[in-house]
């Protein structure tokens, strides 16, 4: 979660949002979330699990492309 927040602080183009999956189970289900942490970029499931900063930013950029 913190990496997403750091990216949002580093770029005005990034909005980062933590979503409590059990409270927002409908949204989690709609995005195919089955494990946490799960990352959804622009409303599309991207990946699950923690990754280092370099991989995180590359995956976000790739998901956005």
């Amino acid at each position: 979660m913190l990496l997403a927040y750091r990216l949002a602080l580093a770029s005005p183009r990034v909005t980062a949002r933590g979503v409590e999956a059990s409270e927002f189970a409908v949204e989690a289900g709609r995005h195919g979330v089955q494990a946490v942490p799960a990352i959804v970029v622009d409303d599309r499931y991207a990946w699950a699990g923690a990754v280092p900063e370099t991989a995180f930013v590359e995956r976000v950029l790739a998901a956005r492309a």
Partner: protein
Amino acid sequence: MTLGDREQDAIRSVLAGLEREVALTLELGPTATPVTLLAAGGREIDSNAVAREIVESVCALSERVSLSVTERDVPGPWPRTTIAPGLEYLGMPAGYELTTLVHGIVEAGRAAPSVSELTRERLQELQHDVKVDVYVTPT
């Protein structure tokens, strides 16, 4: 859900390192479905009230952190805590996610974002806005 003395001391210590002021907003409103908290024996709880109690308690632990609470009367993704522009948390920041809230405040309170130069350069290549949602759980 009230913070214990040890938690308060730990959070107060972490927030003492803030390099600038952080202004949070907490939006509350009608929720689509009741929230059942397993840790509370499976009973339904008022997520707005719990979120408010937690966020108010954390913000009260530093003079550099302020909080504005707004009550909405329309359906939405509530409760929503905005830590800084572009940094949000939907739901109750309880359990492990209390750490997310506190460290989100710490990140927002830094003089400069704590990312590598490479990350900064890569982000400058973004031509469009991007929304990153991280689904988490408190346990």
